[in-house]
């Protein structure tokens, strides 16, 4: 069982986001980066499948500049066997078809049984790379996976539908599955894992020269037409004003 996991490095949920003066992207130097949340779950699912089967290989595949080797090392420390780094600048890049084509170039060189990806990235959030890759490689695909069962030659996936509905979908391998957050409990790297990760291979490859099919024109702060009444003061004053708002404005008492 050979599983590729696509892992992206994204700004942490509390990272500062400073828009560049040309409004084309954010200041990457100011960002505190982490592993994309749903990718972390996808990685854990792949590691658990390998451990349950007692055989196989988990390969991390990531795209981005040199800085992303931090999350690649983290994934290796958690137990991935090796990594492939498609090294390229991604400032202002938003086209998922282009991203998918970079991954396909690399993935087609190896015979993966499964390609796992997180449902969507917490930065650009296009939410389609894993499905695009599966389709471009003529594989079966499924999104929003919240449970997986791998058997000989096929995988069963419990998919999340809307409003509390679910569905089991079965497909032959190879398949590309996008993973929803929350389906397992991602591990932390062990000290031994961190030490061992230093010896694991990170193969660096070049991107292709395809062109973007969608472009970012500008990034800006949200414009809201809603007037928010801000309640300010010391904690005691805020408590008092909140209760007054509950009583006299929202009228819940």
């Amino acid at each position, binding site marked *: 069982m050979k599983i590729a996991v696509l892992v992206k490095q994204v700004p942490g*949920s*509390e990272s500062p986001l400073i828009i560049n003066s040309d409004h084309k992207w954010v200041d990457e130097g100011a960002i505190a980066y982490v592993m994309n949340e749903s990718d972390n779950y996808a990685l854990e699912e792949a590691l658990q499948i390998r451990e349950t089967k007692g055989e196989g290989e988990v390969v991390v595949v990531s795209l981005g500049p040199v800085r992303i080797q931090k999350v690649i090392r983290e994934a290796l420390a958690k137990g991935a066997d090796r990594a492939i780094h498609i090294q390229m600048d991604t400032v202002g890049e938003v086209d998922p078809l282009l991203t998918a084509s970079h991954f396909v170039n690399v993935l087609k060189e190896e015979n993966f049984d499964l390609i796992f990806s997180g449902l969507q990235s917490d930065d650009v959030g296009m*939410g*389609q790379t894993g*499905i*695009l890759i599966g389709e471009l490689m003529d594989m079966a695909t499924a999104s929003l996976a919240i449970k997986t069962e791998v058997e000989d030659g096929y995988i069963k996936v419990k998919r999340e539908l809307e409003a509390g509905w679910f*569905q089991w979908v079965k497909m032959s391998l190879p398949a590309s599955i996008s993973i929803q957050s929350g389906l397992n409990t991602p591990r932390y790297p062990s000290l031994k894992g961190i030490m061992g990760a230093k010896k694991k291979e990170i193969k660096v490859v070049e991107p292709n020269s395809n062109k*973007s099919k969608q472009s970012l024109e500008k990034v800006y702060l949200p414009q809201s037409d809603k007037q928010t009444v801000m309640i300010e003061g010391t*904690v005691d004053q805020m408590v008092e004003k909140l209760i007054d708002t509950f009583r006299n404005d929202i009228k819940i008492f």
Partner: protein
Amino acid sequence: MKILIMLEDNNGKIHRMGLESIVAAQKMASELNGELGAVVMGKNADALADEAASYKLDEVIKVKDSLLDNYSADGYAEAVKQIIEKENPSYVLFGHSYQVRDYAPKVSAKLMQPFLVDNVAVKVENGKAVFTKQMFNAKLFSDIVPNGEGPYLISFQSAAFSSDALERGSASIIDANIDLDSSMIKTESEPPFKEEAGGLDLTAADLIVSVGRGIGKEENIPIAQDLATALGAELASSRPVVDAGWLPSAHQVGSSGQSVSPKMYLALGISGAIQHMVGMKGSKNIVAINKDPDAPIFEVADYGVVADVLELVPKLTEAL
């Protein structure tokens, strides 16, 4: 110039987000001077076509094929691809539903045409549509344009357009034939099922206290529960709290949980990810308490408090 709208089936009725896409399409068509076609598929296509024909559209395209009776990503993607090739639209609009997230990227890959997803607005500049999408977990907005020749695939976020603005009319219904073959469908699907939500119906609640990641740890959940009890409110949560196992999934509000519209929605330490906001934007009064003044939740809040919930909430409960 033609715009096609893909309408999703929701048990024999047009999915709410499909109606919202018709509104988006009507707006785009009036600004870009285009024709409008709506596409319905699947076992309820007849009923959906009749419903769609009552809106201001040029035509409703009905696609029936036994392989589309039950949803499959491959079947739907292939069918939509063939319709696009026949109709040659400039834009194909979708609601950004879970089903669309599952199959529409495959249409994009089959046609090698861009799919601009989850947009909250569209504006026309110099005869060209520019789409607005939230990024970085809704903390920033971005304007995105498709490159090259169409068709362009576009999806809109839930509630980006209000179906109250739907223009009525009378459209003709035409049948379209497509060529599907069972070998194209690589998955076998079991029937969808509903999982017991644990008996907690938040949709009927008048007051909701909802807790997010900002509560810090499972041991702090009682702080929110105590406030809910003091207010006579139901306790709800955002997805990360459920994912972490701090509350059962029955408490979850958002696209994968319940959609609520109480008199007051009090959000404690919830940053306001898109997936959460679509489930609570309809609340009559939204009060947000968060220590991050830039949290996106403040954009939808009627009342905002920048404070640490762990410090403020126990005092608030005590004062009630």
